[in-house]
């Protein structure tokens, strides 16, 4: 221990400072993200400005730009996190299940989560369709993540070779129908239970087609 005392403090201090800096930086980032999420949800991508985000986070625009290249960078960061968290919840929901029960469990988990953060989800979906921004978002987001979970569960139920080609079609349809229904839920003010019932019914119809085919 003694051998570290002399060089010890000198050795420890520089190591300590970067850690504190890193911690402070992370905290700043988190504050910015929290403020940005609220503003993007409230006003959409176009409506939210870096100035307003900085203000809400209690810092200067310069401080925001120190952590993020630009607004799209910040937005895509948030979108990536949302996607990763959605994926994790869906995967947890399918634990121990296969085939149709797995699919329904995953869609239930997705609906519950996304219904609670609908405005942000809308902002992200709108961005995906905007030229320019949409490309940037798509490049960084792996769109197939949630759909690939559904695909896995659809493939559980298939034994034929034909299933391979069909499975992608089916799983895409299930996920797309889910998103469309989620959007309608926002407009019609549906609560979770009726939303889940609709999603289940649609999924059953699509899967029934698969079974016959």
């Amino acid at each position: 221990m003694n051998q570290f005392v002399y060089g010890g403090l000198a050795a420890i201090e520089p190591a300590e400072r970067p850690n504190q800096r890193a911690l402070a930086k992370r905290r700043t980032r988190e504050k910015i993200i929290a403020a940005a999420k609220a503003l993007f949800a409230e006003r959409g991508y176009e409506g939210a400005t870096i100035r307003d985000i900085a203000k809400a986070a209690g810092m200067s625009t310069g401080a925001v730009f120190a952590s993020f290249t630009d607004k799209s960078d910040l937005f895509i960061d948030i979108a990536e996190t949302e996607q990763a968290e959605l994926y994790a919840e869906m995967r947890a929901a399918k634990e121990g299940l296969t085939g149709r029960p797995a699919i329904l469990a995953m869609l239930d988990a997705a609906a519950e989560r996304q219904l609670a953060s609908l405005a942000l989800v809308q902002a992200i979906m709108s961005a995906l369709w905007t030229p320019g921004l949409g490309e940037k978002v798509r490049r960084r987001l792996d769109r197939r993540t949630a759909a690939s979970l559904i695909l896995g569960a659809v493939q559980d139920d298939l034994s034929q070779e034909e299933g391979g080609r069909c499975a992608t079609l089916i799983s895409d349809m299930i996920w797309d129908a889910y998103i469309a229904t989620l959007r309608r839920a926002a407009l019609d003010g549906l609560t979770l239970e009726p939303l889940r019932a609709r999603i289940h019914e649609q999924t059953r119809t699509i899967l029934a087609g698969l079974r016959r085919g």
Partner: protein
Amino acid sequence: MGVREARKEATRLRVLDAARQLFEEVGYEAATIREIARRAGVSVGSVFTGFPSKSHVLGEVIRCRLDELYADLERVTPHLRGSTADRCRSLFAVHYAFEFRRLRLFLAHISVAFEFREAPGYPVLGSNPRLRGMVLECLAAGVARGDVRPETDLELAVDLLVAAYAWNYRLAAAEGADVQDLTQLFDRQVGVIFEGLAPPG
């Protein structure tokens, strides 16, 4: 119509015409109210008298085009043949062909339709009542014809078909898919949906 109303209406139509052209030329994002006003030969204020925002202008441009689309469809509908699935395919094929003529505009519409908070009263994507009505009629006739299960929730089936139709456009946005790609994909999706709706046995 009084002289004043007639003039207001004429202004409105000029604005819509100018907007449609500008949107097609430079895209919705890059288009400005100022440029629309300039091309229409009116003041920016006049534009805002008729439309609360740029997104409302887009909404109205889209809505007006629908008349053209439904004229196309009305020509086609009396001649629809085959199974209910095939008739549905034809209805939506007409839609794809129509929208692809002005794809950029339609994609802008989809994007704005998502931000419905920004533009309350904006035509909602996928809930176009005439489209839904036509598909509903087609399905109801299918029940009568016996290739759709009688106890089917028709509204839900319409939702599925319209969702599949609309969401395929992302492939046009993301991967440059053309009208044939989307129509072929949709044909397969219709197949799946109708297998699920078919009567047992």
